[in-house]
């Protein structure tokens, strides 16, 4: 779900960089308001590497296998560090694996990072009910994971279909956006389920990893 170089018009790339700049600015401001902002850097950096590596884990989805995006889980565990973490992860993807691209880095970071922040807010809502309750943790973990991927997929489809084939008619565009987004529903369920299982694991093994924010 990374949009490569050369596809989007320059104006869309520039708009992507503008929203990424704004989201990074907000995140860094929130991070700097913490008691010791530098103390969180090693933790956020190592988890950035860990998330990058964890996205190589393949989950069997017959007839093939899918890798997970994990942006919802990233939001739930890293809080405001999630956006910089995603930006850095995508930068590595672009320069090391040619997955995504430099001109589309802003667009891709917005596409994955803004839903991650959304997932962070969703997951934080479990504080309103009962933070220690495993059922609520699983429910909010599931919603955070599913929404994280779902919103990212929706943004990607709208961008790709409205910008690439300049000669498609409006009806066909709308139909293909609906079709492609519907195709992502099973992936959203898997992503949500996986996120719920990981947050339950973390709550049992290392609860302080979920205490961000």
């Amino acid at each position, binding site marked *: 779900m990374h949009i490569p170089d050369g*596809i989007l018009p320059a104006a869309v*790339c520039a708009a992507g960089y503008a929203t990424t700049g704004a989201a990074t600015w907000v995140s860094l401001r929130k991070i700097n308001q913490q008691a010791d902002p530098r103390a969180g*850097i090693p933790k956020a950096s190592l*988890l950035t590497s860990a998330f990058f590596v*964890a996205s190589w884990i393949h989950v069997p989805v*017959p007839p093939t296998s899918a890798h997970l995006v994990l942006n919802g889980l990233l939001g739930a565990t890293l809080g405001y*560090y999630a956006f910089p973490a995603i930006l*850095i992860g995508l930068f590595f993807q672009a320069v090391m694996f040619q*997955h995504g691209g*430099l001109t589309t880095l802003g667009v891709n970071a917005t596409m994955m990072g803004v839903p991650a922040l959304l997932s962070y807010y969703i997951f934080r809502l479990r504080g309103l009910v009962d933070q220690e309750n495993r059922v609520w943790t699983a429910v909010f973990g599931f919603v955070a994971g599913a929404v994280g991927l779902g919103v990212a997929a929706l943004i990607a489809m709208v961008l790709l279909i409205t910008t690439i084939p300049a000669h498609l008619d409006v009806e066909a565009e709308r139909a293909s956006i609906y079709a492609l987004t519907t195709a992502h529903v099973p992936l959203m369920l898997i992503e949500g389920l996986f996120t719920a299982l990981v947050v339950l694991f973390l709550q049992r093994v290392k609860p302080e990893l979920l205490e961000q924010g």
Partner: protein
Amino acid sequence: MNLGLEAFAHLDSPFHRWAPKHKLVGLTVLIFAFSFVRDLHLLPAMLAVTFILYAVSRLPLSFLLARLRYPGFFLLALALLLPFLSGQTVILRLGPLALRQEGCLDLLLIVVKFVSILTLSLVLFGSAPFLSTIKAMQGLGLPSILADMTLLSYRYLYEVGDDLHKMETAMGLRGFRARRPSRRTLGVLAALAGSLLVRSYERSERIYKAMVLRGFGAGVRPAPHSRERSQAHVHDYLALGGALFVAAGFLAAQILL
């Protein structure tokens, strides 16, 4: 696991000698100028500039080809769809399929821009150690939190990757095979991802203590590396001027044509 981006960072070419900060600005502006192009007449010039720059950088061709392989799948998917779906002017009919002119031209534009931008970004990041490139970004205003996070995650990417590899091997040896998406498979894979996060988290606590012992957070910047050049030379500015001139040429041509 070898990510290999820095494999040819120590060659000797005009690009390797170009001051990282100037190179970053020059090539980034050129990359964005390329992404601005929509006129098909500019594509041969774009390919020519890309080819010349890659040849001057003395990076081996295999380095480029190996990195084109993965995104090639995406291009292949586009190549199978776009010419048949986009546009009205049919140039060839193959049974129920109609090859359309607009789709073919769209595809040509996307492929040429994609290959050119990818090649230039390889020249940019392949012709200097990653550390110097990030330092150059910091010199150009990248916030220090982002720069520190980038360098630390880059440093530990290899080790976390090895962790995953070891855990997967251990799981395989104990008979785990991820075949069907059952509740159990998903649970085991979630525990694998969770363990990866917990291990990295614990490692980060040790690293943070070690960094504090060495003065991290005390506001002291380490002394610049002795081999690093602090001063930019005339040729750095000349090369930057050249890159900006070519980029301006593409922008002007796109606007005027």
